[in-house]
């Protein structure tokens, strides 16, 4: 049996440029001008896991994202990695969605395009980092779901996974279809080569507007989200930043003296 695999990805601002992020004091909006958008790191691990499964068992890998139209660029790169087809859900009406509404929209897009054996995601994103979408997508789809996957093998219609816990790991055997989210250590994502980039130009990439999907308007975007954003601010963590200068020995003595002042018993 060949596998039909869906992967949900998210374009996020490159975390190497987070220091450029500011908040407009008037509009209270996050200003991320000039920060490049990349595919979230763990989502690349999810794509890699999907491509490996396809290489072993045959099938098709389809990527989904909910993002602005500019995400087409990111999706082309995903297609260049070897993904077969991409769907972008892009509409103002979808903006401001929390994890509940986001996972609903992804579920409806997945449902519209076909049947999938395995749905993969990165365990969490770098920007919001909630780690909530995989579980909630699984609940919307009403199929088994599991997070923190470090490895996965497929045979005879089921998947055997190892999932990380805080005190070790647990191995499960899960019937398909199912949703899994993977962490960084699961694999090393491939980098697209020139051939992949050339091929990607001709691969199918479809943009869905809200009207293209059979969405309940009460479930989408900011309005459909159970959680609502309030105030946003930049935490002020600044301290006195007093310079200690001098030769290493003198600096060390000063550091030890400051540590002793705190009452911590050392040495």
């Amino acid at each position: 049996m060949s596998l039909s695999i869906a992967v949900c990805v998210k374009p996020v601002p490159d975390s190497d440029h987070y220091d450029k992020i500011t908040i407009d004091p008037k509009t209270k909006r996050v200003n991320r001008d000039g920060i490049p958008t990349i595919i979230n790191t763990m989502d690349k691990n999810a794509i890699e896991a999907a491509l490996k499964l396809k290489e072993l068992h045959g099938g098709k890998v389809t990527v989904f994202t909910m993002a602005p139209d500019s995400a087409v660029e990111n999706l082309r790169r995903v297609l260049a990695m070897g993904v077969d087809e991409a769907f972008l859900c892009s509409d103002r009406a979808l903006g401001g969605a929390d994890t509940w509404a986001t996972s609903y929209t992804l579920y409806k897009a997945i449902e519209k395009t076909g049947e999938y054996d395995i749905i993969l995601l990165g365990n969490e994103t770098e920007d919001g980092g909630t780690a909530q979408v995989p579980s909630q997508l699984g609940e919307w789809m009403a199929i088994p779901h599991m997070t923190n996957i470090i490895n996965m093998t497929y045979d005879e219609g089921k998947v055997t996974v190892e999932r990380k816990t805080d005190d070790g790991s647990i191995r499960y055997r899960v019937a398909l279809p199912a949703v899994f989210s993977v962490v960084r250590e699961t694999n090393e994502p491939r980098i697209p080569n020139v051939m992949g980039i050339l091929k990607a130009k001709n691969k199918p990439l479809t943009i869905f507007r809200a009207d293209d999907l059979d969405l309940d308007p009460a479930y989408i975007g900011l309005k459909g989200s159970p959680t609502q954003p309030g105030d946003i601010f930049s935490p002020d963590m600044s301290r006195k930043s007093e310079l200690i200068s001098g030769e290493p020995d003198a600096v060390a003595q000063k550091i030890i003296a400051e540590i002793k002042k705190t009452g911590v018993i050392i040495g």
Partner: protein
Amino acid sequence: MDISAYKGIHVFCETSKGKIIENSLELLGEATVLKSKLSHNPEVTAVVIGHQLDQYTDLLGEHGADRIILIDDAKYAQYRPDFYAEALAETCKEYKPEIVLVGATLKGEEIGPTAAKILDTGMAAHCVELNIREDGQFVQVVPAFGGKVLGDILCPNYRPQMASMKAGLATKQQFSGQKAVVEAFSPDIKGFGDKIEVLEVIEEVKEKVSLGGAELVVTGGFGIGTQDGWQKLEVLASKLNGVTGCTRPALDEGWTEHEETMIGTSGVAIKPKVYLGFGISGAAHHTCGIKTAGLIISVNRDANAPIFDVSDYKVVGDWEAIVDALIEAL
């Protein structure tokens, strides 16, 4: 939804190797603080799911639980996310709490949002602070962009209001001798039935390092450069009766295997009396984990390293020379 029917604060309390985890006890403490800020004095309830749970009740009472709900059955002896999440959701349907707190552990991050979807309510992830506004609204403060931005999250129209929080952010409270009312709850849980099968539970043999109670933490960033360099930090930490905490580069480069000591948004928040940072640039996703540290001293060759802005003392120079001098002096 009649939100006025929802009263009380539930804390999902997680067990590991026969103990209630610290994160859960901290959240019980947080719940008692929220309770004191709410005019209707809501009850704090510890919800424990697992098998053979009676041993935990005294501890939970002494950490602030007024009531304890034990969901105790052999089916919960091994962790199945579907069973645990459904059990938590069923507890909410039965007891109607206004607030549910869940530790942002690798299990909690799965149980919480799954239960939130079953209940079709909102959940704020990885809160760094929880408040009650003057009008009584529960405010969950969450980080975005690695802690560079913080935002308030509200859940005005749905109940319960669910929030997760990582270890080290809330503070345990002691209520010596407080006895909680204990009750058993046995919801009819189906989960995904035989579609999920537990094959094997693998307990980690590697000794875990806890930064939670550490008074002094030595940390190194990408600037450390080599495994030998990292070893020097280990030596320094042990000379100072402290422990080393790590950053993403130290983990990725393989200088340390202790992922549990990673500090920041994707790791733990720490509050040592002393934090010493060497060769750390100071990205927000690291520094938001040391916000409540006592004394912060950092050493970096780059005079413009952002870590200096959040430090009490800064040393501009070669970290290795300073570490060598410290080791020599101790």
